[in-house]
């Protein structure tokens, strides 16, 4: 009997303990259901902007979000002292991007380069997600059209048809960790008019891009488009390579970069880049975007 009382007491204490631990076990179970119960834990912020530099990123404006964007490129650095290393010249593209739904967005733009109008539709097909519906990558499709209106005195035959180019792009991206995101963009370009018969009207280009966050609100971006050889023969065309820096503050994204492309629309930079990094045909430029939320306040 002497030994039994302490045993009983111990057991009693133990039973009390189980009551407490039962609470915390229950809480843990409920918390777990919190995590797994989330069907679509979308990974956000794969890229800060809707463009990595020139290349469209998988990001698009959300429903009823309007983004006003100015893309600006100065002249070539190797223009020399007289042109103040390119700063005397500039081309720019002004664009509006708008989210029709949370997955479909449209955009229009006007570039001073070749006096080009452009429009596109972008649809998020797949979104990278954690939770029970795990999805490893995001996929966005983009269809674009570009129309140049620059008048050529020597080419009076240039009609609407000849001046139009098309883009179809699949954007595949993965946010590997909180800082690093990568993107691959197989692209098909169609030019209604090419300089000579030796040049192809349909080009295949592989675009790629990455961003590495260096602080919470700043990142280093790089992008490259690989144009397989033998597609353009009548003039020397280079792969577009750009590198830059993103800073985000509230609804603004500032991007500063250097690139060998002057055009800012797919047919103009992916298949018509004539600048070469090695020769110093480098353009300094920036993108500025501002987001506006339209629609009634709830």
């Amino acid at each position, binding site marked *: 009997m002497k030994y039994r009382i302490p045993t*009983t007491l111990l057991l009693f204490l133990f*039973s009390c303990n189980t009551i407490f631990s039962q609470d915390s076990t229950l*809480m843990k179970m409920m918390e777990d259901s*919190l995590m797994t119960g*989330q069907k679509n834990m979308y990974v*956000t912020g794969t890229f800060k902007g809707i463009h990595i530099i020139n290349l469209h990123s998988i990001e698009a404006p959300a429903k009823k979000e309007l983004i006003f964007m100015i893309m600006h490129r100065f002249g070539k650095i190797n223009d020399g002292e007289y042109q103040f290393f390119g700063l005397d010249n500039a081309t720019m593209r002004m664009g509006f991007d708008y989210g029709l739904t949370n997955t479909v967005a449209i955009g229009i733009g006007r570039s001073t380069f070749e006096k080009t109008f452009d429009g596109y539709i972008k649809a998020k097909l797949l979104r990278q997600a954690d939770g029970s519906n795990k999805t490893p990558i995001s996929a966005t499709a983009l269809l674009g059209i570009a129309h140049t209106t620059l008048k050529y005195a020597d080419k009076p035959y240039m009609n609407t048809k000849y001046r139009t180019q098309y883009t179809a792009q699949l954007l595949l991206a993965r946010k590997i960790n*909180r800082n690093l995101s990568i993107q691959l963009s197989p692209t098909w370009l169609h030019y209604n008019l090419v300089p000579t018969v030796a040049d192809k009207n349909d080009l295949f280009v592989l675009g790629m891009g990455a961003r590495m966050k260096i602080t919470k609100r700043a990142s280093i971006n790089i992008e490259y488009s690989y144009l397989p050889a033998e597609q353009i023969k009548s003039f020397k065309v280079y792969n577009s390579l750009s590198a830059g820096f993103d800073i985000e503050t*509230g609804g603004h994204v500032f991007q500063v970069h250097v690139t060998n492309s002057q055009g800012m629309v797919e047919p103009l930079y992916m298949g018509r880049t004539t600048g070469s990094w090695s020769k110093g045909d480098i353009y300094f430029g920036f993108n500025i975007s501002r*987001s506006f*939320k339209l629609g009634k306040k709830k």
Partner: protein
Amino acid sequence: MKTKLLLLVLLSIGYSNANAQLYITKTGFAGFYSKTPLEDIKAENNQVVAMIDTDKKLLAFSMLLKSFTFRKELMQEHFNENYVESDKYPKAVFKGSFTGVIDLQKQQVYNIQIDGTITLHGVDKKISIPATIEMRNGVLTGVAKFQLVPQDFNISIPSLVSDKIAKLIDVEIKVECNPKK
């Protein structure tokens, strides 16, 4: 024999206690509001997990920060990416106890005092706040309104947007808990 009987009785008391006074929900509400002349920010979460033990007067709340929805998606993204860093710290948790006399047999709103620890953005902070609790038709409703300071949780606000985010963030919690079966 007697000991065994006593043990059985004690264990059964313990067991019944554990079951009878637990109230839980998975669809509690949490909202926070920041009001400044430049910008009003509102974020709400309807997937708060809560547990209230009326016998031992203990409470626990847990929620995923990603489940907060904002009017502006960009704000929601910034909230998760730059402020609470929900990829590193996915949850906000409160664990504590309350004091105050309550009689669950009566349909009456009782004022209680809650003491406990909030864990947010990897920081633990002790808080003491008033709240109300009410039993109606078998549903236990708890409501609390209080304020939090982002800097207390190592959440820094850049000077560029500091005019757009209130120094004190209003927080509202409302849970309707059912007895655990």
